[in-house]
């Protein structure tokens, strides 16, 4: 059975290789190859899952050793896979949701001439993510980790002819690389501390070393997680990543990529458990990010960017939970899975809306779409209810647990973290209701108006639509949109995900199924909560109602202005991602430009200048010496006599002394 593990990765990897190397002759069937291999991986996952379920809880770890990768001195890295409950959960999420997104993309990318390549990249993404969660040591995990970064680079920049897409892709990769630096330093620290970086030896020997070392490792792992999971301060790439096709956003936000950071922290639980300072840092990052993302999400008019803010915020919840230690690990993963369902559903829904609206993303130009896109409306609506934590739906169970766990941390920290989580819940309710109202309710603001706003002229409609989903509707691109429901191949995945969003949480929570499943890997402990579970649930409900009510008051009762009002200071700040990008631009980009430019100058004038100066000095000296050679025999004779006279004088002088 162990041998199936490699097949999990091999299937999508084969797909990527075939599709990318195969060339044009696969154009006609490429997308089906990609979808089939992704689904095949899911089937392998199910088989392995059934196998794991057949064993008792303590023996649900399969390992497969393939070959020795690097072996130098004491440095030993193997290509070994490890499948336990934690990685199994991820495998099913990645391949399951991933396959649905593949299916959806068949329809969404139908008119894109580079669809084959798109599927190749999607398969690469899955393969890298599977490698990440199946690796048995940190170095192999690192391969998947950067592989995910590469795949996201390729997919975010898929429409490369758009400079903004190319820039966004580069930014995503670079910010991730900063995080990767943390991971490499963490691996090096592990090697010097434990002499190994395989999960087994590292995680079982945390007691043998100092807390300082573990804190350092933990902080470096946190840096890595911040990069991949778009946590403050490395969150800036996520908003720009919306430049990619919408299925990519769904994949990045729901099944792969951003979940990797949470996986890393939960997987390294033993290290964090032994390093309370690092844990505290994790919770702080999580809490800050969940508020940061939520605030940003409130101000965005771009439907995808609003959802991106929401992802950031939800991942913040997971990181917060993961930072709480054994109280929170299980709930972090549970929220991750339910979030996988509803966020994928929401993004696919958003893609479906854009598909029907000529790729318009500005929610101020939507409105009243529920009549035209009933399936999208219902699935999106269920996802919406799930994410705000409507009682009985997925998000309710998982988020509620996290808030409880935050309070259970105890002490002042517990109150602050719990409060932040509660506040986050209220804001989540607000911005998601806002998205819902602006998109599907209210007046139809897209009538009598070209879809593109005047300050954002479509500079190259041909180019923008060549790759865009709506190229089939290019004729209507500049006129009034004709909203319509998306084809079956796109709605079916949305329906499946909506079902997951509705029932997933309840299914996991009944009888603590999920808890029992994951506990052997992550461990679990009940915290000592100052508040009862019922109180927390009640408070969460109050927050939810308040959030929805404010949104209703602002966007439901009053018509939504088609042009964004100036807004308060906070709104304006949030629209600009709380000035994080401006900060980056001024400090890093500008500063970096000045640094490199002055270094180029220094290299040319100083380093090279010293050498060239020496050469010029010798040149000048020889130019002067050359004048002595004037060609007159007599002057040579004079110098000869002079020289002879000097010699004689010197000899006499030596004699005298």
């Amino acid at each position, binding site marked *: 059975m162990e041998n199936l593990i490699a097949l999990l990765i091999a299937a999508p990897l084969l797909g990527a290789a075939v599709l990318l190397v195969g060339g044009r002759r696969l154009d006609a069937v490429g997308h089906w190859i990609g979808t089939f291999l992704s689904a095949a991986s899911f089937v392998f996952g199910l088989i392995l899952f059934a196998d794991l379920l057949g064993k008792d809880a303590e023996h649900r770890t399969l390992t497969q050793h393939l070959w020795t990768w690097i072996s130098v001195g004491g440095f030993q890295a193997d290509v070994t896979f490890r499948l336990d409950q934690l990685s199994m959960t991820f495998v099913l999420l990645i391949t399951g949701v991933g396959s649905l997104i593949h299916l959806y993309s068949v329809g969404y990318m139908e008119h894109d001439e580079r669809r084959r390549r798109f599927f190749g990249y999607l398969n690469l993404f899955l393969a890298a993510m599977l490698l990440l969660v199946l690796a048995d040591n940190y170095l192999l995990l690192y391969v998947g980790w950067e592989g995910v970064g590469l795949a996201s680079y390729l997919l975010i920049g898929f429409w490369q002819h758009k400079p903004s897409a190319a820039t966004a892709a580069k930014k995503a990769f670079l910010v991730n690389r900063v995080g990767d630096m943390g991971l490499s330093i963490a691996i090096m620290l592990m090697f010097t501390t434990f002499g190994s970086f395989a999960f087994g030896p590292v995680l079982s020997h945390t007691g043998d070393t100092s807390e300082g070392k573990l804190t350092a490792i933990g902080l470096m792992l946190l840096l890595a997680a911040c990069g991949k999971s778009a946590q403050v301060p490395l969150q800036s790439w996520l908003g720009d990543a919306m430049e990619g096709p919408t299925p990519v956003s769904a994949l990045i936000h729901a099944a792969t990529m951003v979940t990797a950071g949470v996986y890393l922290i939960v997987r390294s639980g033993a290290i964090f458990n032994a390093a309370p300072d690092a844990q505290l840092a994790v919770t702080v990052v999580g809490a800050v990010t969940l508020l940061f993302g939520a605030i940003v999400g409130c101000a965005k008019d771009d439907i995808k960017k609003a959802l991106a803010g929401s992802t950031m915020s939800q991942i913040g919840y997971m990181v917060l939970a993961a930072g709480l230690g054994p109280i929170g690990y299980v709930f972090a993963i549970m929220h991750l899975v339910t979030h996988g369902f509803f966020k994928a559903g929401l993004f696919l829904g958003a893609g479906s809306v854009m598909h029907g609206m000529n790729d318009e993303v500005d929610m101020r130009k939507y409105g009243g779409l529920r009549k035209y896109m009933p399936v999208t409306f219902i699935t999106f609506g269920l996802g919406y209810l799930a994410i705000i934590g409507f009682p009985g739906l997925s998000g309710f169970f998982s988020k509620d647990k996290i808030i409880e766990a935050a309070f259970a941390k105890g002490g002042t920290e517990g109150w602050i973290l719990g409060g932040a989580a509660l506040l986050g819940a209220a804001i989540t309710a607000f911005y998601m209701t806002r998205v819902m109202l602006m998109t599907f309710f209210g007046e139809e603001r897209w009538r009598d108006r070209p879809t593109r706003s005047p300050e954002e002229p479509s500079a190259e409609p041909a180019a923008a639509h060549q790759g865009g989903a709506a190229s089939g509707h290019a004729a209507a691109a500049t006129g009034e949109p004709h909203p319509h429901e998306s084809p079956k191949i796109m709605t079916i995945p949305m329906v499946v995900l909506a079902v997951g969003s509705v029932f997933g949480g309840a299914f996991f929570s009944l009888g603590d199924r999920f808890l029992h499943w994951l506990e052997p890997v992550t461990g679990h402990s009940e915290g000592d909560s100052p508040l009862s579970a019922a109180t927390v649930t009640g408070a969460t409900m109050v927050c939810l109602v308040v959030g929805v009510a404010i949104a209703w008051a602002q966007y439901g009762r009053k018509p939504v202005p088609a042009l964004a009002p100036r807004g308060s200071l906070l709104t304006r700040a949030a629209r600009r991602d709380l000035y994080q990008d401006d900060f980056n631009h001024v400090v890093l980009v500008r500063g970096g430009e000045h640094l490199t430019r002055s270094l180029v100058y220094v290299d040319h004038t100083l380093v090279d200048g010293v050498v060239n100066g020496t050469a010029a000095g010798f040149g000048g000296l020889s130019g002067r010496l*050359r004048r002595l050679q004037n060609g007159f*025999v007599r002057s040579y004779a004079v110098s000869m*006599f002079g020289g002879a006279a000097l010699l004689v004088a010197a000899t006499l002088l030596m004699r005298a002394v």
Partner: protein
Amino acid sequence: MNPVNYLYLAALLFTIGATGVLIRRNAIVVFMCIELMLNACNLAFVAFSRMHGNLDGQIIAFFTMVVAAAEVVVGLAIIVSLFRTRHSASVDDASLMKL
């Protein structure tokens, strides 16, 4: 007679020769002055030989004469060919080898 006087004479001849080399332009004259300097040296060598009572100086004087003879052969040939090409025996005209 004091052999030192021969040395004075040699020095005088050498100086005359050197001055001639330095200030005259005619290649023949320069050449003759060089010969004068060589012979001044010869005179000094012979005088030394006498003063020290051994034959080393005289041997060297013979060497010098042989070298001088060879030099005359080559030098005169050069001067003649120079005169043929440039129609002048001035050493200043032959300054083409400078950079």
